[in-house]
């Protein structure tokens, strides 16, 4: 099992750093999957069976050099678990870097080693090295970490500006922990929160709906009819807090009373986030 990659471009490095910061906000410990053409950050659903976060980076858009050798030829992938904050902290020290290298090493214990060559006024370069401890995930556990299938949603709708949503939801958190997200095929999305004393609804209109994948969806459903799901507001807020910039594209898929699925695209990095309905 070998992995070695290099980032030489400042813009790519900044983008990669932003992605790692986003992942660190969404997950404390996550799985990094390394394959020949992509990196994935995966957060498995603790309830078992499935993932709650799936982030994919096409490797060619970030790394000027990329070499990997998986566990075996048939299983050409590497799965390691790490503390997401270690990676984001390590990358943040690379602000004035000439080049950054990442590789899988074994220094007393398996590590993801990030080596940064800093710009220096003198002839000799300065090097910063971070050894991030990782746990190698054995093959038999890989089945729980596979790419999730896009759910058969009752309603798919484009998301409004996330910053606006976040400021609204932050205030709603003071009222209750249970948030209702509902949307229809008419471009309407509502966030509802209720307590004994008060009921607050925020309406987002004219958001637009992506073209539906299945024909049944548009035929059986009246455009005004809302699909709703009740979720833990803290999970939703955590998801929103992780998005520092508004995505290039953001879709919300609601499976009535079952779950909500967010599908974001930040330039070339895709992020999927699943929040189950409160039982």
């Amino acid at each position: 099992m070998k992995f070695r990659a290099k980032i030489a471009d400042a813009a790519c490095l900044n983008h990669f750093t932003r992605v790692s910061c986003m992942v660190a906000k969404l997950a404390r410990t996550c799985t990094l999957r390394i394959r020949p053409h992509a990196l994935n950050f995966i957060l498995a659903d603790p309830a078992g069976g499935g993932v709650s976060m799936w982030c994919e980076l096409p490797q060619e858009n970030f790394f000027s050099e990329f070499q990997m050798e998986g566990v075996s030829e048939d299983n050409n992938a590497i799965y390691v678990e790490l503390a997401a904050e270690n990676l984001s902290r390590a990358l943040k020290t690379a602000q004035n870097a000439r080049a950054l290298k990442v590789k899988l090493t074994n220094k007393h214990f398996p590590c993801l080693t990030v080596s940064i060559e800093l710009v220096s006024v003198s002839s000799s370069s300065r090097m910063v090295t971070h050894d991030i401890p990782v746990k190698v995930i054995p093959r038999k556990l890989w089945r729980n970490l596979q790419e999730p299938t896009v759910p058969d949603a009752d309603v798919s709708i484009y998301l409004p500006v996330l910053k606006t949503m976040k400021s609204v939801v932050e205030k709603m958190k003071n009222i209750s922990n249970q948030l209702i997200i509902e949307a229809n095929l008419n471009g309407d999305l509502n966030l509802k929160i209720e307590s004994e004393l008060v009921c607050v609804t925020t309406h987002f209109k004219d958001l637009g709906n992506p073209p539906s994948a299945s024909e049944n969806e548009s035929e059986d459903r009246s455009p005004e009819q809302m699909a709703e799901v009740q979720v833990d507001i803290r999970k939703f807020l955590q998801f929103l807090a992780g998005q520092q910039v508004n995505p290039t594209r953001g879709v919300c898929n609601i499976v009535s009373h079952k779950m909500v699925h967010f599908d974001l695209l930040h330039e070339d990095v895709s992020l999927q986030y699943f929040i189950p309905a409160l039982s």
Partner: protein
Amino acid sequence: MAGAAAWWSSCTANTDCESLQAVFDPASCPYLLRAPAKLLGEAVLPFPPALAEVTLGIGHGRRVILRSYQEEEADSTIKAMVTEMSIGQEDFQQLQAEEGVAITFCLKEFRGLLSFAESANLSLSIHFDAPGRPAIFAIKDSLLDGHFVLATLSEPTPNSQDLHFSEPCRPAPQRQAHSTPQPDDFASDDIDSYMIAMETTVGSESSRTLPSISLSPGLQPPCNSEGEEDEAEAELSTVPGTPPPKKFRSLFFGSILAPAHSPLGPSPVLAEDSEGEG
């Protein structure tokens, strides 16, 4: 500064005070490192703010290495991230130490004295000796002469015999054909043997704790020092090589006042004790 003196008063709970005089001598330290404080300030930036101790040493190729120090706990499975900064000797004004020497001291205190020295745009000289012996950080300009003495960890750091101090430091990466890996890069990175060992004991994996971002606690006994501008200060070890436990300390300057004007004279009694006899 003839006639200047610095006094330490060490007060225990009984307010029993003892005067101690600082005793240290930078000239007795065999090793010396001198650099602009700005350089050292930049060097400690990559370390986490909460990190307690750092190891400073000379690595291969006479590079100066700063590495985060984690106290090793035998039964702990929580591993912390290790950060290392390596600077070429050309960036130093003076470097008088051989490869392999290293000391571990309090990073928080170091950051404090660095920010002072940086603000005054001064160079910092680090006089040091074997692990356990105090390290003296000196700054000087036309107005002041400051010495900060920090305790160092007494047992030799596990890291000093470890990889980076003994392993050749890679020079700046050279341009290569895209698909050709540097042969030595993978040689020391071989994780296959670990993987094989792990896969055969996969049942016991579940008990392993996940890597955590928490840093392990600092060294025992606590490292300990204070610094002031104008003259020396130091801590005295009651046992050579180990810093004393923290006690309340106060510092008095007696530099400019002649004994007759000492402010420490007894104050006049303003009212007699009404409970007194007679």
